[in-house]
């Protein structure tokens, strides 16, 4: 079983739709949670970073963490064609020799149609 599970999609939505992307994880040691956006043949770009359970909002993006359920989500409001990319969830353990080692999900391919 993978430590981080993410539905690879692909997900196709019309412009203006609300997009929901999700990941589950099995390791309770994960304390930091990130969402990255990756355009084709580019490096991942950090979108959201959260530590505690709850919601964090940044513009059209909302990241949600539920540590009790080991479940994280990214919501995109008023989706745009420029949001078309692969979205990767990533997780990090706190401290020790694991500091800096990100564990990624498989990535979800999102296409937003005009």
């Amino acid at each position, binding site marked *: 079983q993978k430590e981080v599970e993410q539905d*690879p999609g692909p997900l196709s939505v019309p412009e203006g739709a609300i997009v929901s992307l999700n990941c589950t994880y099995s390791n309770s040691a994960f304390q930091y949670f990130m969402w*990255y956006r990756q355009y084709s*043949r580019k490096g991942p770009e950090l979108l959201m970073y959260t530590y505690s359970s709850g919601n964090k909002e940044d513009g059209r993006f909302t990241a949600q963490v539920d540590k009790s359920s080991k479940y994280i989500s990214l919501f995109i409001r008023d989706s745009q064609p420029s949001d078309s990319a692969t979205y990767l969830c990533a997780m990090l353990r706190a401290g020790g020799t694991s500091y*800096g*080692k990100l564990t*990624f999900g498989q990535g979800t391919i999102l296409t937003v149609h005009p």
Partner: protein
Amino acid sequence: DAGVTQSPTHLIKTRGQQVTLRCSPISGHKSVSWYQQVLGQGPQFIFQYYEKEERGRGNFPDRFSARQFPNYSSELNVNALLLGDSALYLCASSLNTEAFFGQGTRLTVV
């Protein structure tokens, strides 16, 4: 400020050859990590270096090695290349817990 820079951007090598990939972190970042991303998968952790010391190693064979220099730049070396080493190699630099990635080096082994 310049982001994480990697060189070269593309590389084609023959099976059995050796390759060196380079990374310059964001100014002030002392930690550099390397990841391998195969098409259709998320990045897989290879190495982490902090202050020139190896802090972590992923499940990769000894053909993979890395080092970090006094200016915090880093090199990833891969010996005896296999077809399966074809991938996007990503370098990430971090100050605390947030990691910022370069554009990657796309390695093709033929």
